[in-house]
């Protein structure tokens, strides 16, 4: 049992230790102790706000900690108290005052049709429409870092899908500065907050060829899938709702690089699309959704216009990462667009009786 005096001493020692770490990692202190909270502008453009809402689902830190203790969110269409001219002025003033300091989180596509008339964040105080393209070009050169959250801002996503009625493009297509792409439809809160944390503490993270942080987008779903053994053994779901490999009902896991199978969605790591017996639809991919659809068609069967070239490109990327023989068969088919006879045989479900079900534990027979 601690005496009160011992307890106080212990508490003070702990504080001293924390201060030591503050000295060692001054950036951490700045970012997380509230001495100087990093300024953030969250710019929603052509979006469903799903990426904002998904980010608000963050577990640790949670959105309360983030909003009240970690960052100064000067502009956010969904959060801010101000509206109208007051909101627009807050945006303009923050951009000037925090120039070179603020982190720009961009959500949504930038529509270019009719001089950007298809998407606006509001009106200027002088009455002109404040278009998305004008807003992103105004803010990008002043930001310390630019983070594109969600597949729309990163690559175009659903709103840029053919025939792209609004002429939407990704953020990196219209700004000269480096954009860190954190895709996902929606983005997983861990990917968004994790990337933000990396920017705050260590600067720009390692990026892949599509400027996605490799810490989240470096694993191929297919390689880490808990149902991989079902794929290898040829146990395939014929319909959604079957607890088997979802490859034949359209899983895009073999060409999708992200950590869903291990990270899972969200908070308490509840599930992810394959665990829900549905196909991964490749929502973090640069050609989502056009290159990833029909969602229920398995890879070599896809015949949407324009898909072939992009899938080839992804397929070649995949090749560098894998060596497994079955995966190589798959890749060959993805890359050439042909489906070999031996491959069709391989995907045919075998009689389940002869498959060793890896989920069963030793001694199960005796219990029954």
């Amino acid at each position: 049992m601690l005496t009160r005096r011992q307890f106080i001493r212990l508490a003070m020692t702990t504080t001293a230790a924390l201060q030591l770490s503050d000295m060692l990692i001054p950036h951490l202190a700045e970012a997380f102790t509230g001495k100087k909270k990093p300024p953030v502008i969250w710019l929603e453009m052509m979006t469903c706000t799903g990426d904002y809402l998904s980010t608000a689902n963050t577990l640790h830190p949670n959105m309360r900690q983030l909003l009240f203790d970690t960052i100064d969110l000067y502009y956010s269409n969904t959060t801010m108290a101000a509206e109208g001219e007051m909101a627009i002025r807050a945006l303009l003033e923050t951009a000037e005052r925090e120039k070179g300091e603020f982190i720009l989180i961009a959500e949504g596509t930038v529509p270019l049709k009719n001089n950007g008339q298809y998407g606006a964040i509001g009106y200027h105080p002088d009455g002109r429409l404040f278009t998305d393209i004008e807003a992103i070009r105004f803010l990008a050169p002043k930001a310390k870092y630019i983070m594109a959250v969600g597949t729309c801002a990163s690559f175009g996503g659903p709103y840029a899908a053919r025939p792209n009625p609004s002429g939407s493009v990704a953020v990196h297509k219209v700004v000269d500065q480096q954009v860190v792409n954190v895709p996902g439809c929606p983005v997983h809160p861990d990917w968004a907050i994790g990337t933000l944390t990396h920017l705050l503490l260590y600067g720009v993270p390692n990026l892949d060829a599509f400027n996605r942080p490799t810490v989240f987008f470096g694993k191929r779903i297919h390689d880490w899938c808990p149902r991989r053994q079902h794929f290898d053994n040829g146990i395939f779901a014929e319909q959604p709702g079957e607890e088997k490999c979802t490859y034949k009902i359209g899983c895009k896991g073999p060409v999708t690089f992200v950590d869903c199978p291990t990270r899972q969605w969200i908070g308490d790591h509840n599930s992810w699309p394959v665990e829900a017996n549905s196909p991964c639809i490749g929502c973090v991919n640069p050609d989502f959704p056009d290159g990833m659809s029909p969602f229920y068609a398995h890879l070599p069967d896809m015949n949407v216009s324009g898909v072939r070239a992009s899938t080839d490109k992804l397929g070649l990327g995949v090749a560098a990462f894998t060596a497994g023989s079955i995966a190589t068969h798959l890749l060959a088919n993805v890359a050439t667009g042909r489906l070999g006879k031996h491959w069709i045989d391989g995907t045919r479900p075998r009689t389940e009786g002869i498959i060793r079900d890896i989920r069963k534990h030793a001694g199960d027979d005796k219990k029954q």
Partner: protein
Amino acid sequence: MSQKIRISPVTRINGFWNIEVQVDGGVITDAWSSGIFFRGFEEILKGRDPRDAAYLTERICGICSTAHAIASSMAIEDALKVKIPKNAVLLRNLSFGADLLQNHIRHFYLLSILDFVRGPDMPPFIPRYESDYRLSRPETDRFIDSYRQHFEVARLTHEMVTVFGGKAPHQHGITAGGFTSLPTADKIQKFMGMLDLVGEFINDKLIPDVELLARRYEDYYRIGRGYGNLLAYGNFALAGRPGEFVMPFGVYSGGKFEKFDFAKIREHVHRSWFMQDQPRYPGEGSTEPAPDKEDAYSWVKAPRYDGKPFETGPISHLWMSGDYRRGISTMDRIMARVLEAKIVADLMRQWLKELQIGQPVFQPFEMPDREVEGLGFSGAMRGALAHWVRFKGKRILHYQIVTPSAWYCSPRDMHGIRGPIEEALVGTPIADRANPIEIGRVARAFDPCLACAVHLIDLKGKNRAAGRV
């Protein structure tokens, strides 16, 4: 003296919205509501596999994605006469119910209360209007405490969607043919545990908070009445009783109830940025964007029922079911939404118990190579949502969506009749023109979602163009 006030953007909603009002003698005398972004979702759907529509239309809206998944799946099932298993009905109700709780909790705390409660003196709560905050210091602290807590609770509701739906927003469970996840004891208990926590928050925080708000802003029971026209689609299907819903269809206008008929819906585009056209039934709509059209001021069309503008949402659902008929006003809309959250949370406990372990969740179906039509709908979080689809084999020929927000954010129609929010704003007193906080109170009480309201479009026009080539 007459003066115009423009609020653009109206923040703390989903999407981008512009409101202009005319103020005479301290009272709003006219109003204009306009959506200021446009994506063309229905055009994007053309030519795609009808089974993709559920996942794609979810992407219209991040806050009510499950409602679009339900309406879209239902439209495909209607066209192909697919009967989904009882488990699928229950799992859809549960996932959609969880998303509805998410919407209602976030609408109250994240989007609404800053119109009534003075937030902390830090961004994003400053700058703010300095006007008419009526709560005492301890009451304000209590609200901000609930605000801080709601982030955790809202995450739990989305976690409930992921338990069966795989992810959230834009879940995977609800799809044409039924549902994909199997109800198993581990998932059921997890869902139930989270539901209990959310239910506690609704009972212990949300309801007392809204009651306090209603006491302090009692005059808002007399502000923002609007037309008093209410429209509701059937919401939460009853398992094993096709065509029946927990919350029934209904039309309420001029103080009378009427029987609802989809055939009486027309969409007007006279003051919208679309090619001029006569009002059309959504299943036969034909419009193309015309961003330079004179006299137009919105990307939202103007849906009318039997020629009249209607509002929709929780107050309409509860009016038809008989659970709430106190009155129609800004505060009634807010109260009804909270009450709906409470009712749905209670219903969800029942649905969880009705799940049948080991029974099917998905009904396999064929897609014959002939042209078929279907209609799917949902009461959604915000009210009447419907999807009209026509397809042949694995190709969508026509897709049309009329969202709840289009009903109440709509601009004027061909007769110059104002949309429901425009009408509700008329008569609202503005105490201080420099701090017109009253506008947002009336407008946000509808729970507008411009992400849903703005989209197009018919595909016939495009077919015609292709024919010319």
